[in-house]
């Protein structure tokens, strides 16, 4: 019935809307026809034409009212009224173009900042997985005392996959790793990003390859049997020029032939935020790729290298799945106490994973969005203040409208339509600004990711961000439009008609305006404090230094697994490499290290028990970050050894095991003794002891802003690692060494790829200086915009108040008040407001400081200097904003002031 109904009514409504004039004309004609008939009838009855006409009109009882009534029947009133309002709004705004432009720019800045940061927040947090029904995909994590987000081992994965009933499927994926790829067997391998995934990966996620097929489950069952690979969409496009015949072709990965079986669809760049894998291989091919050489990937339950995700069955709750998983984890603890003791498991939604408190992206995102919202708040209060003043200037217009019968609701609607127009213009301009911010972020692609792997900045201005910005514009239209609209339609008619600009008796109206000033000062003080803290925090980190010498270093990485080296070959390779580069011209010293300081990769963790240390009853061992280095490391990296010694060539695999710890570590476990000579046991108290032979200075390991942290070094000879980075100290430009290193490598293996070869100083500057500088710039510009807006707003409001009191001031001066008195009168009000704003802003700033300290910086406590600089300068600026109008007011000649208005 309904759709059939619309069939008739929709064309009618459209006609009423778009052929308005025609419809009106027809209405007139119709009524005219009726009247004429009626008049003819009257004349026939013997009335005079004039009388007949009069009678006909009277029978209509009000022709125009009837027409209105008929128009109401068309049911498009709300829309035509809105269009009328909009037209009127545009006309009345264009009468004050300066004010309109200022409002639009103000809102644009606020909305632009917010939509720019929201695009960031969206990419990091809210954007769903690029798979069908993404909300059903959960992440499973292994939990320990120290790490709530640990990975699982292959054996654990199989158990979880086979023994749970809550899921449609459980999938596993390893980290994206460097893979040596060559399209033809003969060509030298290049580095691409490959990820090992379980056989059911694409199937469970619901991702259909755009070409060929995904993995079959049987392709993930026998170690090393099924050498098949699925290509990522971008990789297929760039490497194979979207050639559809690629399916079935053989490519070489790490020296092994693989058959291409499919290409992932365009819509699936991968499950990670930043990384977009080029190649997907089955887990069963692990022997070809990078797994922990100390462990057996397929057998060792503590070789935890897999991220687990699962698709929840419809109707199964998260709690049910969690309970099931907890039982399984308890079974693991019982059956494998040696490797699973104290280990639980948990299930998290995508949102929970992305908002985990140890995630630095999330922290930055929260801080940026908070600050951007503060800018928007300042902008909105600013605009609200302006609209309020505008409403006052229109008192007479509004009074006239009310007097001739406009309803208050209708007027509020009109005024709200005006602020809606402003907000839409501001929103559009704001989106352009936001787009600029996103582009600006994008331009740092190469700064942020200095790696050969396919990482990309995921921020973009997509529909989601656009919709959010639009919603934000509408919201701000309401926020800054409602109060002024309500207030200016609450006019006293009699007074309103008499004067153009009068005040209602009472203080209520002033109160709202004063609140605006206080809010602005407070919000901008908070913004300034935050940006100042950010700058100071990074400066503090930079001043403290990194603890090592980062100049004149060349770095280049090797992964002999790419060339199918076994453990013995790998050891031989690094031994010869170190020996030969040391002899190369221009090389002062060399180092081999598993991870570079301040690099993108995480350091390995190590579990240990310090000898002679009273273990707390409830824990098995402690853990610390660690790095594997060779004997040249401390000298080459310029890390001073404070006590004892560094590693020596005599610390061979056969020699007693040794380790070097950092000062923080030593103080932590042996606060009153010398750590040198103490022993620790790895994993548990039953294993072979490792003697601490030296204490190195604590340096910055991950971030220049980090707190001092425990750290342990192990010698490469006793703790073999496949992927190592060679660091060379040079007396001149380190990049000049590249050629001689290449020559040396060629004598060892002409096909061995050199990965991520660059000057460490460049890397350091980009990573530790340029990256934070981007964040600082963003926050500082927010602070600056906030302050500018606040000053403009404050100036506007105070100046407006003064001009409103011109007559009063004139009377005061006429009665003998001195200029100083007037100045004091006007200023005291401004100062009071600024003072209140400052107090609130200080409280808010303090809260933000706590937040930022706990999230980003190691500087504990209050940064007094920030307040000593920020507060008085803001106070001075705002007082100046109050002073200018006050001075003008005090100079008014009384005669002029009394004639004012």
């Amino acid at each position: 019935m309904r759709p059939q109904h619309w069939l008739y009514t929709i064309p009618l409504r459209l006609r009423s809307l778009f052929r308005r004039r025609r419809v009106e004309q027809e209405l007139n004609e119709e009524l005219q026809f009726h009247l004429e008939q009626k008049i003819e009838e009257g004349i026939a009855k013997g009335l005079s034409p004039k009388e007949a006409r009069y009678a006909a009109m009277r029978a209509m009882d009000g022709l125009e009212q009837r027409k209105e009534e008929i128009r109401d029947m068309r049911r498009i009133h709300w829309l035509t009224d809105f269009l009328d309002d909009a037209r009127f709004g545009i006309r009345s705004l264009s009468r004050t173009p300066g004010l309109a432009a200022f409002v639009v720019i103000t809102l644009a800045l606020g909305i632009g900042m917010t939509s720019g940061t929201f695009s960031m927040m969206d990419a990091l947090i809210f954007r769903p997985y690029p798979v069908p029904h993404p909300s059903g995909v959960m992440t499973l994590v292994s939990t320990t005392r120290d790490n709530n987000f640990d990975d699982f081992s292959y054996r654990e994965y199989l158990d979880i996959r086979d023994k749970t009933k809550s899921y449609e499927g459980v999938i596993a994926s390893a980290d994206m790793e460097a893979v040596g790829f060559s399209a033809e067997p003969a060509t030298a391998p290049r580095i691409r990003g490959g990820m090992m995934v379980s056989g059911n990966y694409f199937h469970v996620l619901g991702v259909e390859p755009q070409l060929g097929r995904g993995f079959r489950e049987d392709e993930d069952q026998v170690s090393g049997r099924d050498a098949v690979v699925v290509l990522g969409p971008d990789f297929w496009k760039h490497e194979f020029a979207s050639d559809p015949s690629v399916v079935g072709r053989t490519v070489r990965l790490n020296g092994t032939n693989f058959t291409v079986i499919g290409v992932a669809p365009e819509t699936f760049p991968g499950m990670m935020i930043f990384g977009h894998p080029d190649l997907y291989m089955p887990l069963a091919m692990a022997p070809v790729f990078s797994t922990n050489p100390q462990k057996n990937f397929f057998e060792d339950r503590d070789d935890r290298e897999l991220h687990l995700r699962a698709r929840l069955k419809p109707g199964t709750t998260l709690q049910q799945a969690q309970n099931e998983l907890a039982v399984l984890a308890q079974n693991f603890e019982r059956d494998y106490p040696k490797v699973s003791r104290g280990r639980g498991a948990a299930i998290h939604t995508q949102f929970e994973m992305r908002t985990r408190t140890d995630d630095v992206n999330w922290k930055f995102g929260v801080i940026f969005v908070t600050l951007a919202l503060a800018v928007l708040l300042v902008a909105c209060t600013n605009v609200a203040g302006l609209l309020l003043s505008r409403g006052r200037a229109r008192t007479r217009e509004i009074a006239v409208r009310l007097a001739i019968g406009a309803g208050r609701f209708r007027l509020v609607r009109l005024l709200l339509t005006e602020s809606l127009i402003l907000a839409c213009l501001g929103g559009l301009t704001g989106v352009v600004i936001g787009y600029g911010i996103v582009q600006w972020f994008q331009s740092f692609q190469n700064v942020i990711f200095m790696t050969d792997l396919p990482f990309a900045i995921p921020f973009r201005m997509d529909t989601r961000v656009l919709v959010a910005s639009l919603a934000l514009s509408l919201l701000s239209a309401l926020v800054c439009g409602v109060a002024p609209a309500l207030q200016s339609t609450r006019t006293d008619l009699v007074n309103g008609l008499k004067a153009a600009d009068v005040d209602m008796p009472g203080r209520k109206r002033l109160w709202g305006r004063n609140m605006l000033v206080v809010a602005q000062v407070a919000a901008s003080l908070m913004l300034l404090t935050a940006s100042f803290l950010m700058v100071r925090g990074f400066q503090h980190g930079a001043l403290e230094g990194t603890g090592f010498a980062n100049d004149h270093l060349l770095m280049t990485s090797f992964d002999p697994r790419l060339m199918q080296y076994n453990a013995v070959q790998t050891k031989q390779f690094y031994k010869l490499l170190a020996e030969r580069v040391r002899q190369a011209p221009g090389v002062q010293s060399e180092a081999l290290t598993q991870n570079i300081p301040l690099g993108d990769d995480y350091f390995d963790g190590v579990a240990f028990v310090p000898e002679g240390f009273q273990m707390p009853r409830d824990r098995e061992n402690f853990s610390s970050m660690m790095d594997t280095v060779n004997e040249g490391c401390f000298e080459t990296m310029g890390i001073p050894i404070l006590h004892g010694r560094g590693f020596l060539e005599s610390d061979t695999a056969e020699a007693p095991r040794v380790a070097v710890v950092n000062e923080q570590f030593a103080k932590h476990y042996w606060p009153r003794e010398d750590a040198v000579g103490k022993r620790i046991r790895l994993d548990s108290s039953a294993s072979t002891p490792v003697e601490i032979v030296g204490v190195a200075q604590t340096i910055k390991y991950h971030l220049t802003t980090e707190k001092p942290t425990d750290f342990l070094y192990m010698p490469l000879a006793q703790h073999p690692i496949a992927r190592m980075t060679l660091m060379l100290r040079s007396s001149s430009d380190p990049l000049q060494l590249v050629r001689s290193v290449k020559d040396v490598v060629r004598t060892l293996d002409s096909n061995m790829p050199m990965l991520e070869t660059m000057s460490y100083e460049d890397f350091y500057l980009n990573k530790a200086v340029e990256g934070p500088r981007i964040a600082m710039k963003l926050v500082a510009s927010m602070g600056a915009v906030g302050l500018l807006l606040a000053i403009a707003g404050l100036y506007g409001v105070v100046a407006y108040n003064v001009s409103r009191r011109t007559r009063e001031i004139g009377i005061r001066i006429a009665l003998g008040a001195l200029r100083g008195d007037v100045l004091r009168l006007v200023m005291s009000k401004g100062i009071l407001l600024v003072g209140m704003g400052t107090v609130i802003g200080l409280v808010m700033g303090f809260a933000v400081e706590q937040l930022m300290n706990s999230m980003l910086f190691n500087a504990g406590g209050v940064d007094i200097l920030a307040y000593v600089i920020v507060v008085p300068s803001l106070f001075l600026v705002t007082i100046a904003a109050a002073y200018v109008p006050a001075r003008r007011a005090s100079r008014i000649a009384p005669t002029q002031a009394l004639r004012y208005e």
Partner: protein
Amino acid sequence: MSKPSDLVQGTLDLLLLKILALQPMNGWAISQRLKQISGDILQVSDGSLYPALHKLEQEGWITAEWKQTENNRRAKFYSLTRLGRKQLESEAANWQRLSSAISHVVRLEEA
């Protein structure tokens, strides 16, 4: 004011639909016909006729067309749509039920 005086709410719609069910008509003719068939008992002012017609049109129950009258003047002629015919049936049935119920009650009181 705009409500048809002395007419039960909604009856005007029924009357108009019924009149138009017989033949397409213009507004003036409808007003004449209303007077004619109901005598002076049902008074529908010219003023309330047109809003009612437009409402029926917007509901999709009647549709309008410009045609020549007998004496060669252009006028807007209304006619019933398929939807309007259904509406007429249901409203007429309603009216039957209502009026018989009311007259039943009225007779009860007399007895």
